[in-house]
């Protein structure tokens, strides 16, 4: 009869912590680079230039319709065979997840920019604001308010997606968990702990995002 023993697994809490750090590192890097790349691509998506529009649309559609796992396999196993370039697993993971995430971010940002009515743009320009000022004071704050929840969801997506990178031996928390599981043969406890961990992380992130929205993003009050 199998007895549930969490103590056995919690002994290895330092290993889990190490993995958690890697997970967080991965998440932050991907969110950072993904957003930057996403901004660039979103400009491509709203451009009137047919070539730029086509390229960015192709990019977005590709990375939104191909599974992360397949991309990871390609990024990690293909370069050594093709050009003899071996990436470190973590680097490969960051690159793939950034490219993937940027596609979603581009759509989110594009939605935010499109969501601003033209009248606001025209009003700002007629008041004599320069293009740069227009972006800094009108478009960016407004768009940010519109897309805040979607950005939060994207971050949670990245956290959950980081779990898959364990397949190319990125040492994040799931990977470490598997190792602990194999060593102690207590897979059930390990995965329950991991489950609780991920759910807590996600819920925490959602709460933080909602709190920031409540505190910093109150709509302007009319006199």
């Amino acid at each position, binding site marked *: 009869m199998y007895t549930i023993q969490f103590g056995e697994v919690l002994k290895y809490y330092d290993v889990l912590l190490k993995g958690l750090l890697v997970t967080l590192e991965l998440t932050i890097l991907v969110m950072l680079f993904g957003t930057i790349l996403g901004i660039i691509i979103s400009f491509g998506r709203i451009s009137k230039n047919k070539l730029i529009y086509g390229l960015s649309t192709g990019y977005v559609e590709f990375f939104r*319709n191909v*599974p992360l796992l397949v991309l990871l*396999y390609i990024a990690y196993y293909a370069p050594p065979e093709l050009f003899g370039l071996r990436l470190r697993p973590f680097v490969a993971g960051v690159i793939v997840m950034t490219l993937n995430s940027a596609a979603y971010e581009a759509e989110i940002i594009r939605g935010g920019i499109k969501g601003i009515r033209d009248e606001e743009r025209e009003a700002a320009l007629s008041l004599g604001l320069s293009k740069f000022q227009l972006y800094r004071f009108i478009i960016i704050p407004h768009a940010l308010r519109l897309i805040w929840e979607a950005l939060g969801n994207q971050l949670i997506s990245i956290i959950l997606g980081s779990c898959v990178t364990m397949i190319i031996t990125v040492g994040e928390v*799931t990977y470490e968990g598997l190792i602990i*599981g194999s060593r102690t043969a207590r897979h*059930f406890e390990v995965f329950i702990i991991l*489950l609780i961990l991920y759910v807590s992380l996600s*819920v925490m992130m959602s709460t933080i995002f909602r709190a920031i929205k409540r505190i910093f993003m109150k709509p302007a009050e009319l006199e």
Partner: protein
Amino acid sequence: MALGSVAGFFIGLMRASKNKFLNLLSLCYVETFRNSPLLIQLFLLYYGLPILFNTHIPAQTTATIAITLYTAGYMAEVFKSAISAIEKGQWEASYSLGLSYTHSLRCVILPQAFRIAIPPLVGVFVMVLKDSSLVSIIGFVELTRMAAMVRSLTFTTFDVFGVTAVLYFIMCYGFSKLGSFLEKKLEIAKVR
């Protein structure tokens, strides 16, 4: 996935109901399955449970169960939002006609909610289609697994997985296009 949709439908109903107990129960279910990675759920079912009960569940069954539960979580949210999106006037009208809660739900609200639910339903479907590639990790032989097996025979990763990527792309993109076609046909955006 079909099972998951059906299950998700009922869980979504639970979420939309006024019954506090059902609501809370389904809330826990939904939040657990939506906020954790599918991979963890898969591992839990495939490695964790068999150890607990000293049995072995074949990969195929585990994969099916895991995907069903996962899909149901998202479907529940979709159905709940769709039901909530129907304006209160509809409820009030059906009550004033003497219809019970269940009756009005079934005959008045749900048909309307269904139309609204189709775009997000397509989105969830595509998402699950992509995430289904993860079941290859527990050995269930599907597209990604096949690709990995072919690759280990031929060692041409880029070609094999490149083709796989294209196949997934065609499936997902095609299905999304089908979804937008359906949207246009049913004129969902005009439902107001």
